[in-house]
Structures are given as structure tokens and as C-alpha cells.
């Protein structure tokens, strides 16, 4: 089959809109892992909760879905601070790095079970959704839904803004210092526990905000989180653990590759391909595409 310019444009725009969402959700996971060695497999569950919160606010009180970002973000940040204080802070003190990795992984799996099933008890397994800004945008002979373009643009801007914050601000410098040299950072007076709490909260806030954006595009179920966790893992490992810019690039790349696969082959292979890509990268190049 020939790839016409219109099809190519479809794939590029479709891929970038999917990839923008992937990039933001993966950035949150990467922040937690890169800084604390906490592989939070409950990450997608916070996306699910963010989506349900937006759904509830929009359908219950008629709040504009975009405005709910201002609610889901801070709420999730506070929840993240609390979870860090209650669960993770105890693990992060004193233990050897390998010990932290396995134990926090198990802890996150426990959290995933709790959140997913609490959501099932609260909202049942029914599909829920609403329609927002499902207006077609016409450009160069192709058509895109406005909400997808908007969601991806917001996701990417938030990701880039966070990256800039890490580069420029004093707190961001402390975060980067802790990632590079934990001992040295402590020696110059950086408060590890405070930075850990902030980053844990920020990671969860990013996941929940992505959830608010996703709720404008797709229907919600309590099971929607895990596929995003897997995708975020693929992106993080693709971009290199702890590498924020690599993570944004890898998110866009994965979105493009997946969209091309769906257009050119079939949509059945999407799930197989993300697990297969994950396995292959783990085996062949665990340091990521952009790693040393």
C-alpha cells in the first residue's frame, strides 16, 4: 500500500496527540523512579482516579473539564504527600537501594489492588463517559477531533513547563542534585525527605491531571489504569530511567510508532506490541535509547 501525504499527516498528528498524553503520564513515573527508586505500579490508578474526579465534577456540578485540572492536580498532590508520609517515607529511610526497589514495588502493587477495587466498589465496572469539544478540526484535507489536539497540547505544555522548572528553579536544582549524587546533595544541606515528598506528590499530580485530560477523550472504567502504567513503564525505560527530556521524546516516539502500527497493520497488535517492546528493551538495552 502507498502512504499518501494525507495518511502521513494523519499518523503524525494522531501519533503526537497520543504521544503527548503518554509523555506526561510517564514523566510522573520517571520522577518517582529516578529520584527515589520507587517503581510505582499504582501510577495508572491515579490517572483513573483523576479521570473519575473530572467526570464527577463535570457531570455532577457542570464544571468545565479544563477547569477541573485546577482541582485534580492539587488534590492529587496532597494525596501524594500523604501517601509518601504514611507508606513510602518509612521504606526510603536507611535501607539499601536494592531493598528499597523490591519493597516499594510490592507496596505499590498492594496500593494498586486497593485503589482499583475501591474504585470498583464505588463506581462499578460500567463504562462511563461524557462528550466535550468533540468538534472536528479540518486542516490540509484531514480531520482531527479538537479535544484530542487540545488535551495533547496541554499535556505537552505541562511536561515542558515541569522540565523547565527542574532546570531553572532552586528546588529543581535540588531535585537534580539528589538524582545525580544523593550523598553529596545531603552534604550541601538539601533536605532529602522534603524533596522526596514534593516529587512523589508531583508525580501523582501529573498522573491525575493526565487522567482528567484522558476523561475528555475516552470512556472510563476502574481498569483503565494498568494499560497506562505499562505504557508509562515502556516510555520511561525507552527514554532512560531518570532522564526527563528523554522521557518526553520517548513518549512522543511511542505515540507515533503505535499510531503508525494501528493505521498500517491492525489495532489488535497494540497490546502485544507494547509488552513486546518493553520486554525487548529490558533485555537488549536496559539503560534506554538515550542512555549511555
Amino acid at each position, binding site marked *: 500500500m502507498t502512504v499518501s501525504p494525507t495518511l502521513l499527516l494523519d499518523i503524525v498528528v494522531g501519533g503526537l496527540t497520543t504521544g503527548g498524553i503518554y509523555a506526561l503520564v510517564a514523566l510522573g513515573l520517571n520522577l518517582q523512579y529516578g529520584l527515589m527508586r520507587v517503581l510505582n505500579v499504582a501510577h495508572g490508578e491515579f490517572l483513573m482516579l483523576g479521570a473519575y474526579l473530572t467526570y464527577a465534577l463535570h457531570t455532577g456540578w457542570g464544571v468545565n473539564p479544563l477547569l477541573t485540572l485546577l482541582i485534580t492536580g492539587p488534590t492529587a498532590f496532597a494525596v501524594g504527600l500523604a501517601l509518601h508520609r504514611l507508606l513510602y517515607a518509612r521504606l526510603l529511610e536507611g535501607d539499601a537501594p536494592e531493598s528499597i*526497589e523490591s519493597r516499594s514495588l510490592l507496596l505499590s502493587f498492594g496500593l494498586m*489492588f486497593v485503589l482499583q477495587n475501591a474504585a470498583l466498589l464505588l463506581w462499578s465496572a460500567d463504562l462511563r463517559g461524557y462528550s466535550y469539544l468533540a468538534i472536528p478540526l479540518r486542516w490540509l484535507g484531514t480531520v482531527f477531533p479538537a479535544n484530542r489536539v487540545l488535551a495533547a497540547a496541554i499535556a505537552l505544555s505541562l511536561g515542558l513547563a515541569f522540565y523547565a522548572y527542574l532546570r531553572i528553579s532552586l528546588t529543581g536544582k535540588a531535585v537534580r542534585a539528589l538524582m545525580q549524587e544523593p550523598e553529596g546533595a545531603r552534604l550541601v544541606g538539601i533536605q532529602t525527605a522534603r524533596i522526596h515528598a514534593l516529587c512523589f506528590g508531583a508525580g501523582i499530580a501529573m498522573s491525575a491531571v493526565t487522567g482528567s485530560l484522558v476523561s475528555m477523550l475516552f470512556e472510563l472504567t476502574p481498569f483503565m489504569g494498568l494499560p497506562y502504567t505499562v505504557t508509562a513503564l515502556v516510555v520511561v525505560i525507552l527514554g532512560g530511567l531518570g532522564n526527563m527530556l528523554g522521557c518526553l521524546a520517548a513518549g512522543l516516539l511511542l505515540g507515533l510508532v503505535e499510531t503508525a502500527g494501528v493505521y498500517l497493520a491492525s489495532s489488535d497488535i497494540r497490546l502485544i506490541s507494547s509488552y513486546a517492546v518493553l520486554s525487548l528493551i*529490558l533485555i537488549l538495552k536496559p539503560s534506554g535509547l538515550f542512555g549511555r
Partner: protein
Amino acid sequence: MAARLAWAALGAALVVAPQALGPYYRSLALAILADVALAVAWAFFSGPTRYLSLATGAFFGAGAYTTAVVMARLPWPLPVLAAAVVAAAMALLVGTLALRLRGPYFAVFTFGLAELAKHTLIWFETSITGTVGRLLLSPPGPVTLYYTVLAVAGLAVTTATTLPRTRWGIALIGIGADEERAETLGVDTTRVKIGVFALSAAFMGAIGGAMAPRWTYLDPQVFNPLVSFQTVIMALLGGPATVAGPILGAVFLGLLSEILLVKFRYFYMLTLGLVLIVVVLALPGGLAGLTRRRRPACDSPRPTL
């Protein structure tokens, strides 16, 4: 001596149990024995080596699906054997690829395995054979199934008790304490790891195979990540460093799931998650065998392992 008598009495009680018990309690005992076998088989690899494996669901599923495919063609205990062989072969392949990974990478890889196997099987069945799912016609009777599972569980417990006294068992402890040091001392770490991983997978596959006839219809959803988690939680709850630990954990969680799972499914899973969180936070002793990868060189492996 007293411990040996207790084991013998327990064994005898389990052998006569199907005659004494009604169908409900026999079925409950069967489910718990299967859990015991899974938890013990998981612990004799992951306990000493400290490789956190989440592949149990994949091996269990591979065994169950194998039985479903070959059951019509082979007389009864043979499908279970076939299930064990298929699971072990899968473990050899996966182990060769994945046992070079450490820490969370290995855990994530093995977690993905059950999903990868499930989706690949769905794709294969829909596009090549044209059917998703298998009917299991004329399954063996419940008493036969009970003795099959009892035999597999007994073998798993025997393996777990004798393994630490063999050269491979000692090598496993060495790998868990410090893999590089073990290698320097002349242990063929790759062979030992993959070999015991495959042995443990064979038991998981056999249990999958033996439990498959309990469902009359089987589809690729039998590759269930929940099986992996339940197994890990059972073993960690009891303490993976001993043989009695996973058995106790399996019995406790087996009874809990019997009480909660049918009536309050989501509530059961929620409880399972809470148990896991509490175990990780409050029982680091039970976890010590898995989590502390590298210990100081002067610290010899603890005899409890």
C-alpha cells in the same frame, strides 16, 4: 522427631481426607493444596535467590492451557506431566533472557510475561486456529483430581526441604547473598538459576494442569496476573526463607479467599492489597530473605534460608 511425627500425621490425614470429607470441604482442601504447591514452588527459587518473580500466573496458565489442549488425547496423569514440561520449557526460555536482569527489572519483566502470553495466545487462537477457548470434556473425578494435586504439592514440599541440602541449593543461597562472589567461587550461576527456575515453573505448570479440569471451559484469561500476586503474598506472609512459611501463608490466604472471594470479590482484592502493604511495612523480617540483596562480605548466609 516430634516435627517428623507431625508431618507424617498431616500427610496421613491429607491422604484419607477425601473419604472423610464432603464435596465442599474436599474442594476447599483441593484449592488450598494447590495454593500450597504454588507458594512452596515460588519460595524455593525466589526465597534464596531474592529474584522477585511475578511469572507464576504465566506458568500456571501455560500448564492449564496445555492440559485443555491435550486432555482428549492422553490418559489422565499424562496431561499434568505435559503441563509441567511446557511450563518448564517456557521457564528455560524466559530464564535465559530475563535472569540477567536484577531488582525491579526482573519483576517487571516477569509481570509482563503473563499479559504477553495471554495476548499472544488470543491473537494466535483468533487468527490461526479460529477459536478462542477450549472445552474440557470428560474430566477425571474430583477424588482423582484431589490426589493429583496432593501428589504435586507433596513433591513440591519434598523438593523444597531437600534442595537446600544439595549443591544446587547451597549455590542458590550463594547467588542470593552475592551473585558475583558466587560466580568467582566457581558456581555456574546461570545454569543453577535457570535450572531451579524451570523446576519451580514445572510445579506451577503441573498445578495449572491439575486444576484445569475444574473449569469445563478454558480461555486465555487463565493467564491471570492475580495468581502471581496471590502466590507472592502467601509466601511473603509466611516468610519465604522457610518451607513451613509459604505453607502457612497459603492456608491462611486460601481460607480468607474462600470466605471473601465469592461473595465480596472486590472487597477480597482490596483486602489482599492491604495485606500486602501491611506485610511490606510491618513484617520486614518476613521479607528479609527477598529484599536485602547484597550483604557485607563477612556475613555468611543465614542458616534459616
